[in-house]
């Protein structure tokens, strides 16, 4: 079978109503290495939030694919991103997840760099008897090829050969606007970084965020708890914002949810949620209505699980979560997760949002560990199978329409395609957005 051809990996025949993905995308270590190089290290990826380096000389560290990087705010107030590796011997310069540093000193030989990445000192330089070649070299921390911000969300690319960030995000920007518009002051992350791993391919996480089909199957234990609470059996419980919503319950109720595919692999799945006091945002409902009108405000209160290909997800459902996906191996993924909040919300709204978040989104809570477990069952189950094609990308194919629909029109948003329907439709075709972007990035290396 190897070397792979793209047509062997994704079977995309729209005219015949076929879209299938090969299990090798999840289980092949060599394919994983190619993905790291061509999906993660050659195109736009999400880095973090501008609020993570809010003040002068603040910084945070992350990775682009396998490459460690620093995002720092220089003394000029400008955010920059450079490779977290000393030009001298390659050592990682910043070892903490975040901090404030006017100077970064390499722990090995004390070369120092300022908060804009410029080399300020090569220790004992004058006595170093360097040749001309060294003198002519650039000793600064290497800036990444492209770096940009959209409304507090930071992205970078190790390749310069990419579209502008605005083009890359495209119409998915409307979905970020719905989050960013919730406060005049912008967004921030609640202190407390939660990380976990699962022994499965990173694309399981990418898909699951967009998967409305799994909720009642993977999470009935949580639903049982929600029912217990609804029956008044836990007077101490924090209200769940999911309890009152219908989009996941499986009745036949007209249009209660759907999905949109945007250019470059970004997708969103949404479900209708009526504004209600169990949502932290509810205390801003009147103000938002006044400022943005009924259509836009209704969208702000809907459940929306947004993926920004290939590595970021903004989940607005039981609370609001920012997830960063870090693939480590074909069968191992690390997740960095944060509670994403509008700045300046009331203490009561913040408390509610945090409690709902812990209950649902933490790996120590009542939902996410079940997702992790089923990813691992997929990873185990699909290994070494002869029949390569998965059947997990087919629901909704006959309901897909090109372009947007009435609901996206209300935002002035023009997706590539859309699906809308009852909860049991539970569209899977939005995953196609991921694989089209994947094919696009992998076409650099596979024919």
């Amino acid at each position, binding site marked *: 079978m190897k070397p792979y051809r793209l047509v062997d990996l994704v079977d995309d025949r729209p005219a015949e109503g076929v879209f299938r993905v090969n299990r090798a995308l999840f289980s092949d270590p060599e394919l994983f290495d190619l993905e790291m190089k061509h999906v993660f290290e050659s195109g736009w990826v999400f880095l973090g939030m501008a609020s993570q380096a809010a003040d002068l000389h603040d910084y945070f560290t992350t990775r682009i694919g396998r490459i460690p990087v620093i995002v720092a705010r220089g003394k000029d107030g400008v955010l920059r991103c450079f490779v977290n590796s000393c030009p001298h011997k390659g050592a990682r310069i910043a070892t*903490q*997840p*975040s*901090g404030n540093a006017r100077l970064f000193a390499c722990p090995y030989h004390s070369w120092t760099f300022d908060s804009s990445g410029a080399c300020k000192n090569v220790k004992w330089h004058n006595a170093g008897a360097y040749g001309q070649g060294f003198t002519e070299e650039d000793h600064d921390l290497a800036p990444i090829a492209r770096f940009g911000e959209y409304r507090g969300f930071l992205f970078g690319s190790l390749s310069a050969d990419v579209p502008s960030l605005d083009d890359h995000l495209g119409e998915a920007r409307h979905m970020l606007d719905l989050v960013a518009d919730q406060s005049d002051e912008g967004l921030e992350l*609640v*202190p*407390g*970084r*939660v*990380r*976990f*791993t*699962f*022994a499965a391919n990173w694309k399981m996480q990418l898909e699951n965020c967009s998967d409305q089909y799994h909720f009642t199957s*993977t999470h*009935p*234990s*949580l639903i*049982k*708890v929600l029912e*217990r*609470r609804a029956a008044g*059996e*836990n*007077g*101490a*419980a924090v209200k769940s914002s999911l309890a009152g919503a219908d989009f996941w319950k499986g009745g036949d109720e007209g249009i209660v949810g759907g999905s949109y595919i945007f250019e470059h692999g970004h997708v969103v799945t949404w479900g209708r949620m009526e504004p209600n006091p169990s949502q932290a945002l509810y205390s801003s409902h009147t103000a938002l209505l006044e400022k943005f009108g009924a259509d836009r405000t209704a969208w702000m209160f809907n459940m929306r699980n947004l993926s920004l290909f290939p590595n970021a997800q903004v989940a607005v459902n039981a609370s609001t979560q920012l997830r960063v996906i870090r693939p480590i191996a074909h069968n191992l993924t*690390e997740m960095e997760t*944060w*509670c994403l909040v509008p700045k300046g919300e009331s*203490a009561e709204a*913040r*408390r509610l949002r*945090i*409690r709902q*978040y*812990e209950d649902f989104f*933490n*790996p*120590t*809570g*009542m939902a996410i*560990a*079940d997702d*992790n*477990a*089923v990813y*691992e*069952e997929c990873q185990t189950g699909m290994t070494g199978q002869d029949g390569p094609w998965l059947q997990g990308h087919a629901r909704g194919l006959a309901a897909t329409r090109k372009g947007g629909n009435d609901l996206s029109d209300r935002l002035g948003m023009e997706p590539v395609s859309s699906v809308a329907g009852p909860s049991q439709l539970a569209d899977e075709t939005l995953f196609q957005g991921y694989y089209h972007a994947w094919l696009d990035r992998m076409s650099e290396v596979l024919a």
Partner: protein
Amino acid sequence: MNDLTLERARLTLADAQALITREARLLDEQDFAGWLDLYTEDALYWMPAWRDDNSQTEDPDRELSLIYYRGRSNLRDRVTRLTSGLSPVSRTLPRVAHILSNVELGGMDGDEHVVFSSFVTHAYDPRSDRLSYHFGRYRHGLRQVDGEWRIASKIIRLANDLVPTVLDVNAI
């Protein structure tokens, strides 16, 4: 009233050790009903998150925790889910051993007798054939209810907070 205050039970190191050791055993035996009975109705159960490499979150209303509950009925929710047979990650519960050490009396905090200890839990998950271990420090706050020592608060400071797939109340 004054008499009652004066006669408030003294917590001995042996009492403290007995109670937190019993808690560990009940969890390891998966006797969750017995475990819940050790807690007061209004109990605090709190596992802070890490703010950065060096500090933990301290204000649960403004900062994220790994777990934060006030009220034993929230722990009952967790047990309901854990033992429901409906949770893919918990269908087969991991086999857990809690190891406790360094038990120390920490004086009074309000009406609670503080007990510090260190813990290690080892967990074997038959589902995935995977071993995991977690370690850190406990701070129990004990109170007497009807002549019995009960847990009014438990703060779990988890040192290794990169969670492998799952970490539930049975394994911390």
